[in-house]
C-alpha cells in the first residue's frame, strides 16, 4: 500500500466527492464527515509520500502500468512532495475551520459545496503531482471549473466577477494548451521528463521560444501576475468566506509551483535562464507587481479586498525570487510558497470569523472590534506580523532568503521593492490594528453596515476560532523550523546546476 501513496492522494478526494454528491440526494448529514475523512486520508498520504521521498529520493509512478512516454506518469520529487503536503493539509484545515459558515451560507446546497470543494482540491493536487504536460491542462481545467462554481455564490456582484474570472482563466488555460501544442508539434512528446530530453537540440528554434512564452503567459494569467491580475480582487472578495479562504491560499501558489516545474524540469535552466534580458525583465516585472500590489492595497477601504491586493504583491515576491536565478532566490521563492499559503489561510480565516458575526469587513465596521472578538483579532495580529515579515514568524525567513538572493544576484531593485512593500504592509496592517484596537466603538450608522448592533457582537464560535488559533501559532512554529525545511527538502528540490 505504501507505494500507492501518489495515487491515493488523488483517489480519496475524487471518490469521496462522488459519494458526497450521491448522499446529498438522500440526506444532508453525512456530507461533512465524508469530506473530512477524504481530506484526512489525502493529507496522511501526502505526509507519507514526503517521508518516502526524503528517505529514497524522487520516484515515478506509472498510471495504468504503461511506461512513459506512452502512458501518463506521476513524477514526484522533493518540490512536489512539499507542495502536496501544504495543499492537502491547508484544504483539510480550512474545512474544519469554516464548517459553521458553510452550513449557514449554503443551507440546503451545502453538500454540493462539499462536492465541489473536494473536486477543487483534487484538481489542485493533481496539478502538483503530475508529470505529463497535457494532463496538467486537464487538471487545470478541473481546478478552474470547480473554483468558478465555488466563487459564484457570494454578494450581489459575485456572478459578474466570476464570469470575468472565467473568461480570463479560459484564455490563460488555452494559451497554456497552445504552448504545449507547439512543443508537441516540434518534438512529438507530452511527458515532462521526455520533453526535457528532446528539447535541448531545439533551443535555437523560434517555435520553442514561442512555446515557452505562451506557456508562461498562460500560467501568469492564472496566477494573477501583474498586469494580468485584474480578475483576482473582485473574484476573491465578492465570494463567500468559506470559498475564498480555500481558493485564495491554494490557487496562486499551485500556479507558482507550475511555473517553477515548467522552468526547471521541462525547459531546463539552460533554456529558461539563457537569455539574460528575459530573466532581468522578469525580475523587473515582479518588482512592478510588488509595488503596484502594495499601492493598490493602500487605497482600499475594505479589508478583504485589501488582502487580495496583498496577495497579488506576494505573487510578485515568488516570481521575482525564482527569476533571480540563484540558489538563495529560488529557496526563498519555494519557502515563500509554503509560508504564504499558511499566512493567507490565517488572514482569510480571520476575515471569515469577522464576517460570520458582523457581515462586513469595511474599515468602519471594524472599529473597536478587538474588545468583542479578542481571539480573532489576536490571530489577525499574528497573521499581519507574518505578512510584514517580523521574526520569529515564518514570513521573515522567506523574505530573508529573497533579500539575500537579490543582493547575491545584484538585483538591488528587487531588494528595494521588497523593503518598500514590507513597509507598505506595515502601514496597511497597523492601520487595521489601530482601528480594531484603539478606536472607540460608537453607533454603527454607516451606510454599509447592516450587521447586528455592536453590543450583541461576540466572537465566532469555538469551532471556528480554535482552528484559527492553531494556524496562527503554526505560523511561529513554521518559522522556527524554516532552517530544517530548507536543508532537508528545498535544497534537494533545486537542481545542482543552480548556484
Amino acid at each position, binding site marked *: 500500500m505504501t507505494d*500507492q501513496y501518489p*495515487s491515493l492522494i488523488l*483517489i480519496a478526494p*475524487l*471518490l469521496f466527492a*462522488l*459519494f458526497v*454528491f*450521491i448522499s*446529498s*440526494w438522500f440526506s444532508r448529514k453525512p456530507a461533512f464527515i465524508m469530506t473530512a475523512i477524504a481530506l484526512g486520508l489525502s493529507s496522511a498520504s501526502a505526509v507519507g509520500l514526503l517521508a518516502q521521498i526524503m528517505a529514497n529520493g524522487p520516484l515515478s*509512478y*506509472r*498510471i*495504468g*502500468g*504503461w511506461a512513459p*512516454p*506512452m*502512458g*501518463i506518469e506521476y513524477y514526484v520529487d522533493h518540490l512536489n512532495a512539499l507542495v502536496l503536503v501544504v495543499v492537502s493539509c491547508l484544504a483539510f484545515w480550512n474545512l474544519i475551520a469554516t464548517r459553521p459558515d458553510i452550513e449557514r451560507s449554503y443551507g*440546503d*446546497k451545502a453538500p*454540493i*459545496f462539499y*462536492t*465541489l470543494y473536494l*473536486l477543487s482540491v*483534487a484538481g489542485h493536487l*493533481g496539478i502538483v503531482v503530475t508529470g505529463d504536460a*497535457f*494532463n496538467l491542462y*486537464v*487538471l487545470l*481545467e*478541473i481546478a478552474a*471549473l*470547480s473554483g*468558478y*462554481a465555488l466563487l*459564484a*455564490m457570494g454578494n450581489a456582484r459575485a*456572478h459578474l466577477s466570476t464570469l470575468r474570472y472565467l473568461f480570463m482563466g479560459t484564455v490563460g488555460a488555452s494559451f497554456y494548451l497552445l504552448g504545449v501544442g507547439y512543443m*508537441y*508539434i*516540434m*518534438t*512529438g*512528446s507530452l511527458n515532462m521528463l521526455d520533453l526535457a530530453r528532446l528539447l535541448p537540440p531545439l533551443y535555437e*528554434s*523560434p*517555435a520553442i521560444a*514561442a512555446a515557452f512564452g505562451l506557456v508562461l503567459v498562460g500560467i501568469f494569467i492564472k496566477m494573477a501576475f501583474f498586469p494580468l491580475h485584474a480578475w483576482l480582487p473582485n473574484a476573491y472578495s465578492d465570494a463567500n468566506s468559506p470559498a475564498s479562504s480555500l481558493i485564495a491560499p491554494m490557487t496562486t501558489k499551485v500556479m507558482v509551483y507550475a511555473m517553477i516545474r515548467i522552468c526547471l524540469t521541462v525547459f531546463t535552466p539552460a533554456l529558461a535562464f539563457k537569455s539574460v534580458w528575459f530573466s532581468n525583465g522578469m525580475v523587473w516585472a515582479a518588482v512592478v507587481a510588488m509595488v503596484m500590489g502594495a499601492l493598490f492595497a493602500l487605497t482600499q477601504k475594505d479589508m478583504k479586498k485589501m488582502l487580495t491586493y496583498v496577495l497579488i504583491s506576494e505573487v510578485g515576491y515568488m516570481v521575482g525570487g525564482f527569476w533571480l536565478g540563484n540558489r538563495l532566490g529560488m529557496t526563498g521563492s519555494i519557502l515563500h510558497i509554503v509560508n504564504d499559503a499558511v499566512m493567507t489561510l490565517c488572514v482569510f480565516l480571520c476575515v471569515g470569523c469577522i464576517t460570520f458575526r458582523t457581515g462586513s469587513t469595511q474599515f468602519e465596521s471594524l472599529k473597536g472590534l478587538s474588545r468583542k472578538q479578542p481571539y480573532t483579532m489576536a490571530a489577525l495580529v499574528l497573521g499581519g506580523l507574518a505578512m510584514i515579515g517580523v521574526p520569529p514568524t515564518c514570513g521573515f525567513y522567506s523574505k530573508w532568503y529573497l533579500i539575500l538572493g537579490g543582493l547575491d544576484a545584484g538585483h538591488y531593485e528587487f531588494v528595494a521593492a521588497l523593503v518598500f512593500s514590507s513597509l507598505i504592509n506595515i502601514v496597511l496592517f497597523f492601520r487595521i490594528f489601530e482601528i480594531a484596537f484603539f478606536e472607540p466603538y460608537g453607533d454603527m450608522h454607516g451606510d454599509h453596515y447592516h450587521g447586528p448592533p455592536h453590543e450583541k457582537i461576540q466572537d465566532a464560535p469555538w469551532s471556528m476560532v480554535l482552528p484559527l488559533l492553531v494556524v496562527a501559532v503554526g505560523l511561529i512554529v513554521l518559522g522556527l523550523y524554516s532552517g530544517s525545511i530548507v536543508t532537508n527538502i528545498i535544497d534537494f528540490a533545486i537542481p545542482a546546476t543552480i548556484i
Partner: protein
Amino acid sequence: MKKLAFVTILLLGIVLMAITADFPRWGDPLSPASTYLSPHFIEKTMEETSVPNIVTAVLGDYRGYDTMFETTVVFCAGAACFFILGSFGREEDDKIRYFRHRDTGVVLKVQPHGTRPSSRADFERIDPTWTPYDFIISRVAGLMIPFIQLFGLYVVAHGHHSPGGGFQGGVILAASFLLLALSHNMRTLSARISNKVLGLMSASGVLIYAGWGALALAFGGNFLDYSVLGVLLGLDPIAARSMGIMIVEIGVALTVMSTMIIIYNNVASLGAYDEGL
C-alpha cells in the same frame, strides 16, 4: 481599450504567423509528431489491448487518466450548474397551481394549500404560459426517440470497432431526452426521469470509471491498470484491458448523458424546473 486590444492582437498574430515558418509541413509523414509516439500506438495496440480502434485504445487505456478527469470535468460542470442555478426541488405549498384534465381539457385552479387532484394519469400540472403541444411535432418526436436511443447505445457499444465510444454515444442519448423536452414540455421530461435520478446517474458514471481503476489497486496493480483485473472477469490480461475499456466507456456514457440533461434542465428553466423552452 478597444484600440489597445486590437493592436495587441495584431502584434500577437504577426508574431505567431512568422513562427509558423518553423513548423513541419502540413501532412508531413516524417514530422516529429508522426514518427515519435504514434508508430508505437498504431503498431502495438492490437497486441497490447486487442482493440482495433486506436483512438479508443489510447483514450481508454494508455491515456485513460486524462479521460477519467475529463469525465470528472463533465460531472463538475453539471454539479456547478446545479449549484449556481438549481435547487433540490422540495417545493413549498404556497403557490397557485393549475391542473389540466387530459381528456377533456378542463383546467383546475388549486389555491395555496388546497387539495390537489389525486390521479396523476388523468391530470397534468401546467403553468399559466402553457400552450397545447403541436400534434405533429410531439407525435413524430415520440416515434423517433426510441430509434435515436438505440443508435446511441450502438455508438457506445461499438466504440472498439468503429468511430464512437462513451462521449459520442452519451451525447446522442442525451439528445434523445432533450428532444422529448423540446417537443413536449420540461415537466414531461421530469416526469419520465427526475432530477434525483439524473444526479445519481451522473455521479455513478464517474464512480464506475474511478472505482474500476481504484479496484486495480486492490489487486496489486497501479491505478487504472486494467490487466490485473482479468482475475475478476476470468480473462487473460490483454482481453481484460479490452473489457476494462468497455466498462469505463459505459461509465463515461452515463455521466455525459445525465450531465447534458442536467445542464439543459437548469439553464433552460433558470432553476425553476417548470415549462422550460
